């Protein structure tokens, strides 16, 4: 069974990502969803939308948040898979349409971490073991073995942060519009070695919305339809206890990518994919994702970073809107925001950061310890 070409994206919207002290989660949901309505030409949502899926890491009240914000009294269900929540929310919408249960479905990812009263992610005390428990610490565990095996270092990570900060300056709704240098990254205060402050994504508030419909109905909507070629998800064993883990990769990405390429019929991702949004929660996560997604050989990221392969002007531009790093990371929204960016790129609506003649676009979320990954591939004919 495959989803390929059964579902089309017909409307996208995104709030500004920022530390939004003066508006709540519901404001952000309204901003993103009404932009998506306008994009899809939807004027009577209660008639034209059949169901809603929503995704948030921090809210346990998704269906209420969304239905109350939109006054949209439809089937509303919450989806959750750590930092892969955004992509998973769109995936649930696609599955519902492909199953023939609904014609047109709204997916909205959002989070409002700045109402929590703490800066950065929490140090969680769930048990007596497994501490410290911060995302930086979990994702940093690849670094020492990877550096030792392949000779990469903090400078290579720094170049990823510099690239994503540059791309962020070109995206109107991004949070950090500031060019930085490799030295800025290397001299920033340490968070969890080898991650300094600039190696970490900027946690912000934000919401992103994606409207999908049956591929054969897409012609009824005003914009050029963007087809879902694949949307997959995979879990891997906990890296802390997996007896076979080599700490040179995140297995969940490899599994999810394998399934996505099979579904989309892709055999040479580096050549076939024109633009990609990768989960750069930390610079190292983007680095290994180049390899785990099969774009390049394991261990060769350092050379490709030096060559500029993944820069906006390179062979395969990655994180064209600045990524989690500088566009911002409202956890539940990020995967949906990536799909918004890929749709804009495929329609040629990405402005100053437009990748020329983009026909096939990939997006990738990974979360947990990390243990869960979701991948989407969108395309235009």
């Amino acid at each position, binding site marked *: 069974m495959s989803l390929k070409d059964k579902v089309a994206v017909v409307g996208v919207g995104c709030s500004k990502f920022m530390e939004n002290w003066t508006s709540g989660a519901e404001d952000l949901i309204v901003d993103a969803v009404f932009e998506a309505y306008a994009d899809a030409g939807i004027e009577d949502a209660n008639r034209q939308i059949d169901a809603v899926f929503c995704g948030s890491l921090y809210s346990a009240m998704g269906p209420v948040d969304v239905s109350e914000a939109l006054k949209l009294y439809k089937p509303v269900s919450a989806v959750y898979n750590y930092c892969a929540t955004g992509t998973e929310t769109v995936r649930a919408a696609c599955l519902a349409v492909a199953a023939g249960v609904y014609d047109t479905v709204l997916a909205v990812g959002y989070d409002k971490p700045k109402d929590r009263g703490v800066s950065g992610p929490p140090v969680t005390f769930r048990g007596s073991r497994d501490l*410290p428990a911060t995302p930086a610490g979990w994702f940093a565990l690849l670094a020492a073995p990877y550096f030792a095996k392949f000779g990469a270092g903090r400078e290579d990570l720094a170049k990823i942060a510099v690239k994503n900060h540059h791309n962020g300056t070109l995206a109107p709704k991004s949070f950090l519009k500031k060019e930085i240098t490799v030295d800025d990254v290397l001299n920033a205060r340490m968070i969890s070695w080898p991650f300094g402050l600039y190696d970490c994504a900027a946690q912000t508030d934000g919401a992103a919305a994606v409207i999908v419909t049956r591929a054969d109905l897409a012609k009824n909507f005003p914009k050029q339809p963007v087809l879902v070629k694949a949307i997959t998800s995979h879990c891997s064993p906990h890296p802390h206890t997996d007896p076979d883990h080599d700490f040179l990769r995140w297995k969940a990405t490899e599994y999810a990518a394998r399934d996505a390429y099979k579904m989309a019929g892709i055999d040479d991702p580096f050549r076939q994919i024109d633009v990609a949004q990768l989960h750069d929660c930390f610079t190292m996560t983007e680095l290994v994702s180049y390899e785990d997604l099969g774009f390049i050989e394991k261990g060769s990221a350092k050379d490709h970073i030096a060559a500029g392969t993944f820069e906006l002007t390179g062979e395969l531009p990655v994180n064209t809107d600045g990524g989690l790093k500088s566009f911002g990371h409202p956890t539940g929204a990020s995967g949906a925001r990536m799909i918004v960016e890929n749709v804009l790129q495929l329609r040629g609506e990405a402005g100053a950061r437009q990748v020329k003649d983009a026909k096939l676009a990939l997006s990738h979320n990974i979360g947990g310890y990390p243990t869960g990954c979701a991948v989407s591939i969108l395309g235009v004919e």
Partner: protein
Amino acid sequence: MAGIIDAGIVDWGAYVATRRLSPAVLAGRKPPESGPERALAWADEDSVTMAVDAARACLKDRPRDTIDLLVFATTTYAFDEKQGAALIAVALGLSGDVRTVDIGHSLRGGTEALLLANDAVASGRARNALVLIADSRLGAPGSALESSGGDAAAAFLIGTEGVAAKLTADATASEEIVDVWRRNGDRFVHSWEDRFTTQYGFEDPSAAVAAKLPAAAGDAERVWAVSAPNKRAYGSLAKALKVRPDQMVPGLYDTVGYCGAAHAPLLLASALDTAQAGQEIAVVAHGDGAAALLYTVVEARGSSAVADTIAERVPVTSQAAYRRARKLDLTEYPVADDQGVSATIHYRETAEDIRMQGQRCQCGEPQFPKQRVCIRCGQKDQFTDEDFAERKGTLLTYTLDAFFPAPTPPTAVGVVLVDNGPRIYLQIAGLPKEGPTLGMPLRFVFRRIHESGKRPNYFWKALPERSSS
């Protein structure tokens, strides 16, 4: 000593807190090259963890399944209601049938614990007894007690076979006196005027019980291990007892400090390390009276338990780090109250958290924490429990986390491959200045991990293996 069976000390161990604090650092100056210092339990240590350290040094490879009684003496256990010995028994992998006893409230608890254990073994009620005495002395900021206290633990295995020193006499005197105290809820030790407490709380009762001991047998050399509250009192008691200075076991006031209930026991361990057969060791501890124990050394062991743990030393380099480690800084807004780790989860995970127990599948795959389904063969419930705390391990990967609340961030954390065991994610402590290195050999120590719910939460950390040199 009229025992039914001759009982005594079979083996001993000691743990002196590795961190050392000099009065200069307490005064806000740089640490001097040398000079007096006190042992300081760090943020991840307390009387329980120090007792576990001392116990492991004492037990080494000895069988633990013949220990029928565990006695834990301290004045500084984290709970007023809830036993410490029961927790320690799990950490040490003792049988669930072991009798566990806490002795609290008095600086004299150490000698009482030794006596109680000896009685139990001598009467045949217990095959072996393990006695652990630990204390962590915290004086109010700026007080003399702040710099003269010390944090340490001593452990003694009491039995009837392979005895190194048998108990030959004892004497006790009880006395009601308000000399040194902590009320319920007090953090700091308080005391009455020094000259009063030294004479009536320490010197008089100590001399009185010492006088009750029989005279030295024949020409036996007798040395004295005495729990004087400070260096000066130590010297004055020697005079009162009319013993030569070289008969006094060195008091460790400039290296460890006065470590409360653990002090006389620590000096006893130190004396045992270098004792000759036939020698007598008199142990005198004060506190609400005093007690004296007389041991006759049966077998010289020529060990260095106390000297070794004193030699393992990390100086505290700033007053700020000390204040953070012992939570001496006031904060206007304490952390939001919470229930902490669920008591039901804590109960279910006791073996995993407190004795680092995992399991091995019948297919051979070791796992930690315990699972229902094997990650290797996929079978359900085919596991045998296995303890990993006494194994060694190597470092597979790590990070240095600056976010985790700690007195001196960053906190090293990594995945450790246990020898012939699973991978375990835990904190790495005691790293050299150069930091961690992949593949470095590690051992495990029992520590306080965090204080969620305002209770101590215990688990294990990995420490670099001691170099063999």
